[in-house]
């Protein structure tokens, strides 16, 4: 469709459109006049428009009750905030700029990066002295929310249909079926646990439903209908482990929840620790029902690792932290799930999470102006909320991204919107620039290392401004050329098999 832009523009400029589309066209006219992104607002597809009227329906399933409600309510509020902004004519900066771009609307340094001697205060280019990356300056956007010039999406109001999944997989299926078949939603945004995503993916695929999964997860979903906007193992495990090895020593010990997420993330940790000079000296998988950790703690104390990878999930397993602290086990910890999702550092008394590290993509404390502005907008709408977690932010930018893609496609026709989404988008989210890689439907993220101190204050000693979700690319996944509908697991990657063989030889 993209090639037709000029022609469509001409048509509109010359004659306007058919009567029944007048409001839409006026809306777009306004967009053309007002927005900073005129070219994305007007890719109207005249054939599709006639069939599309009434609100744009966003189907949204999360758990607002049951075990996972601590996450689901955040995500619901994120969706409500994003939809309110879209309906009020706001959008996040960003656009399709192709792979590797920093974002069409990203601000660059107001002046060229300088290389100088730190501490002199004198920017001197190429003076022959030691180089220091701290002297490279990017000017941050004060805020990334701008006018879209479009009230709602293509002039249509955006409506949220958000039934409660109640942390019950069978119900998730039922609700997905209802949203897709009965409510005929234009897009489905759903899923916290991987089990929930896997429960509804067959239904999504059968209906060729456009589907966004916004959570951090173990990776590997290659599905032509599914877009995964959260971070995956390669983006979190490797930076986290490399930091731990560098700072505390090579020997790591993994304790993980015994289900898919824990197993797969532990496999990543095991396979990639050697790449950054570390090794995993012990590994334990703990059933979700376990809340008594004394033997685990004893074994860790015996093994004397330099650090512990904790991949613990759920209320029961969270008991590990106070128990470990009480047993005098004060080893540094690294995780991919804690703090950023369940805000354990806010819920538990210090110092049970002291020494926790997590290479996160977002959490509420991210110290940027655009994030502070986002938090302020959120708290104005939901003053009683305690925390904004990683997957809430993902949900927020994902819905904005969807709105932008529909404007690019000029239609809510799902196949067209999927094509539009596969144009190589960068969107300026509260975390930073996020790049949606077209071939794998996964996002490159701005990763920060979050560290929790004795008083449960969080600091960010290191950041990686754009880490690709590269694993599916290495497997040769290209959903545009070869659509597929599966989840890859590490043993389908010969690289992992190699490491696993080495391990089995040792034991």
């Amino acid at each position: 469709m993209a090639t037709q832009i000029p022609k469509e523009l001409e048509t509109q400029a010359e004659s306007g459109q058919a009567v029944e589309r007048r409001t839409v066209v006026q809306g777009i006219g306004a967009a053309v006049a007002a927005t900073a992104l005129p070219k994305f607002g007007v890719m109207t597809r005249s054939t599709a428009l006639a069939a599309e009227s009434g609100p744009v329906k966003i189907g949204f399933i999360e758990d607002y009750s049951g075990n996972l409600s601590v996450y689901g309510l955040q995500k619901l509020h994120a969706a409500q905030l994003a939809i309110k902004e879209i309906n009020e004519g706001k959008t996040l900066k960003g656009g399709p700029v192709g792979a590797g771009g920093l974002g069409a609307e990203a601000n660059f340094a107001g002046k060229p990066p300088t290389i100088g001697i730190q501490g002199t205060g004198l920017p001197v280019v190429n003076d022959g002295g030691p180089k220091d990356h701290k002297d490279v300056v990017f000017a941050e956007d004060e805020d990334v929310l701008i006018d879209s010039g479009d009230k709602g999406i293509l002039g249509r109001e955006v409506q949220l249909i958000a039934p409660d999944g109640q942390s019950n997989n069978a119900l998730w299926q039922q609700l997905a079926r209802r949203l897709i078949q009965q409510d005929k939603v234009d897009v489905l945004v759903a899923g916290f646990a991987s089990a929930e995503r896997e429960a509804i993916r067959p239904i999504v695929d059968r209906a060729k439903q456009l589907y966004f999964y916004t959570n951090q997860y173990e990776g590997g979903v290659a599905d032509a209908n599914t877009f995964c906007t959260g971070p995956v193992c390669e983006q979190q495990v490797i930076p986290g482990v490399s930091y731990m090895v560098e700072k505390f020593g090579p020997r790591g010990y993994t304790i993980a929840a015994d289900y898919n997420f824990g197993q797969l993330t532990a496999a990543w940790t095991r396979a990639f620790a050697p790449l950054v000079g570390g090794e995993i000296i012990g590994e334990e998988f703990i059933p979700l029902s376990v809340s008594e950790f004394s033997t685990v703690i004893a074994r860790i104390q015996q093994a004397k690792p330099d650090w512990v990878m904790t991949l613990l999930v759920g209320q029961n397993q969270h008991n590990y932290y106070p128990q470990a602290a009480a047993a005098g086990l004060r080893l540094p910890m690294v995780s991919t799930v804690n703090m950023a999702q369940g805000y354990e550092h806010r819920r538990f008394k210090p110092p049970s999470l002291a020494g926790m590290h997590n290479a996160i993509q977002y959490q509420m404390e991210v110290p940027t102006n655009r994030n502070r502005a986002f938090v302020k907008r959120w708290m104005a709408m939901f003053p009683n909320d305690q925390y904004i977690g990683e997957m809430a932010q993902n949900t927020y930018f994902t819905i904005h991204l969807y709105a932008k893609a529909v404007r690019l496609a000029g239609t809510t026709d799902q196949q067209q919107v999927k094509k539009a989404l596969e144009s190589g988008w960068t969107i300026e989210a509260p975390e930073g620039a996020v790049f949606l890689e077209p071939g794998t439907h996964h996002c490159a993220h701005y990763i920060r290392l979050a560290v929790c101190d004795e008083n449960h204050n969080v600091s960010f000693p290191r950041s990686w401004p754009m880490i690709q979700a590269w694993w599916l690319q290495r497997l040769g996944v290209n959903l545009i050329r070869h659509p597929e509908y599966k989840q890859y697991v590490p043993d389908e990657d010969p690289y992992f098999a190699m490491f696993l063989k080495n391990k089995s030889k040792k034991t």
Partner: protein
Amino acid sequence: MRLLHLVNGGEDLGRSRWFWIGFAAVILALVALPLYQTEFEASNASYYLLNIPLALGLSMLWGYCGILSFGQVAYFGIAGYAYGVIAGNLTETSWGPLVGSVGGLLLCAAVGAIFGYFVFFGRVQGWIVPILTLVFTLLLETFLGQTAGYQWRIGAVQLGGYNGMTGIPPFQIGNFIFQGYAFYFFALSLTVAVYFISRILMNAHFGKIMIAIREDVLRTETLGYDVRFYQLGVFVLAAMLAGLSGLLYVQWGNYITPSQVGLLPAALPVIWVAVGGRNRLLAVAIATYLLNWINYTLSEAGNQYAPVIMGALLLLVMLFFPRGIIVAIAELRWPWRRDVTPVSVQDRSA
């Protein structure tokens, strides 16, 4: 003629001409459902229907033969997973789903036979059987739950651990894939067929022996019947019917998780069967359909207390209609009913 006679025997509700006219009308209404319901609603109706074989199996096992099982969902799960593994590995051929279905049922029969052999030939006491069946299903749940590691792969199919098994192929014969309305008719015809076969079986001598065993195991044995053999037989039959429901479930939803064989799903069939009236097949079928519909509608409307409501329903029915609410309604003295309720076998053992 003999079959007709057996269909109209006294071991189930309804024998009069008016009953059969009403029955035919309901079947007709179900057959005509696509005329007045959307494909989505038909798909929901398929779900209510597909639970009926499992419930009928439990009715025969518990209501007729007196063996309470909390483990029917185990066979539901076994068939579902077996179908997923077999059909998922035979995606190249169009008969994969058929092979998977047969394989799933056979595996259920085999597992049921082995479990039943140890329970019944080991002369395990009656009250322990429900506990053993429950333990079996919970063990199965635990086992399946820890198959998350990617070494748990059979051919091309990942068992999937807690996340479950996804992408299970729908049922297919030749190139015809049973989905939407077609699947609805598939589930409807299987359910009706299972109902009639069960009804004939329970009215036949086999059914009498089931009841005799329920009434008095020792008396039945000392009339020369090998009680263990019949208990095993009905146990395997119930396992295969539960398996049939499991097959239909995965063919309908293309997905199964270990939580499907967990504690709550294990308790639900007992509720359906008890609420309807456990020794009346038709009552069980009606209750299963209606309770699934209520449960589905309640939870879809965002009511997280649906399981609690189900449990409360069970308690109330057990208190006020110990023989089941559908049975109680059916045996009211309707004004147009001239005959006295025929003497029938009532289970007073509750």
